[in-house]
């Protein structure tokens, strides 16, 4: 399976994602400069964390106009997997590939810490090897992770099961105290209706190795691989 990691001016988790895919998963991966317009040959595109264009004005606002984003939209429309982490999530929102908008954390401070997440659905290419309802631990590092969507949009997300991760207590309760940024309904990650585009604020690439003390994030990448294997099996053998 071939991964592409988009590099915007100001991306800074690009190298981390690269390391995980290359060294931990052992799959082919390459960087995609934001001026690139052609994504053929890739099976999964990652928009990494960081501060594209300094996040000046609004996070993700300027990056969404990068030439590559048109290609990403096309790629997604054709069913390709798109994973936006942190700043990548913000860019997906600004680009309209996912609904809603991101606001400043309600504490008005940047927050770097571990959070607990409830995996709300495992019926996505990104979460299929987690158990539904499983509680996992993942680091966050952001100043603008306060997810907002208008009430109707929010209701729709919930109805369609598009909320993938929610901030919770270690025991799995979804409470205000467990919410590090004030996001609506404790939302930490959502997918599109077609379920092939995922955006999340926490960083799975920061918890995919034993030496870093946590491997809960590795399962997200393994889910992608397992989904891919399933797809290929369907295509090649007509099974499934």
């Amino acid at each position: 399976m071939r991964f592409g990691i988009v590099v915007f001016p100001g991306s800074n988790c690009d190298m981390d994602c690269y390391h995980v895919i290359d060294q931990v998963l052992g799959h082919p991966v390459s960087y995609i400069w934001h001026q690139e317009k052609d994504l053929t040959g890739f099976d999964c595109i990652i928009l990494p964390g960081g501060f594209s264009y300094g996040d000046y004005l609004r996070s993700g606002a300027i990056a969404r106009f990068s030439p590559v984003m048109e290609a990403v939209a096309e790629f997604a429309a054709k069913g390709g997997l798109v994973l936006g982490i942190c700043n990548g999530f913000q860019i997906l929102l600004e680009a309209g590939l996912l609904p809603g908008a991101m606001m400043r954390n309600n504490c008005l401070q940047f927050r770097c810490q571990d959070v607990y997440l409830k995996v709300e659905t495992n019926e996505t290419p990104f979460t299929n090897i987690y158990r539904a309802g499983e509680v996992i631990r993942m680091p966050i590092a952001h100043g603008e992770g306060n997810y907002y969507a208008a009430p109707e949009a929010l209701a729709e997300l919930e109805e369609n099961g598009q909320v993938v991760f929610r901030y919770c207590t270690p025991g799995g309760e979804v409470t205000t105290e467990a919410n590090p940024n004030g996001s609506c309904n404790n939302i930490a990650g959502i997918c599109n209706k077609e379920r092939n585009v995922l955006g999340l604020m926490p960083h799975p690439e920061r918890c995919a190795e034993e030496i870093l003390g946590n491997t809960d994030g590795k399962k997200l990448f393994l889910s992608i691989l397992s989904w891919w294997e399933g797809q290929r099996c369907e295509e090649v053998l007509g099974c499934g």
Partner: protein
Amino acid sequence: MFQARIFVTLKDGVLDPQGAAVKTALTSLGYERVADVRVGKYIVLSLGHSNREEAEKEVREMCERLLANPVIENYFFELQEVSS
């Protein structure tokens, strides 16, 4: 030549944590008659346009495409002719 003064504010109904924090700070400094605070952006563009309508059309476009996020923000602007 024109100058555009653009004001971007959060929509009513969208919680403004920054405004709330400023209000708390002002209250604790003793300004108790401040009933509400909203914090937005103030963007000033210097434009090389010579035609007002054209300038207006373009500023509106810039606001909708980039300067404001319609999901959470409103904008309005004032356009002023300036000498170069």
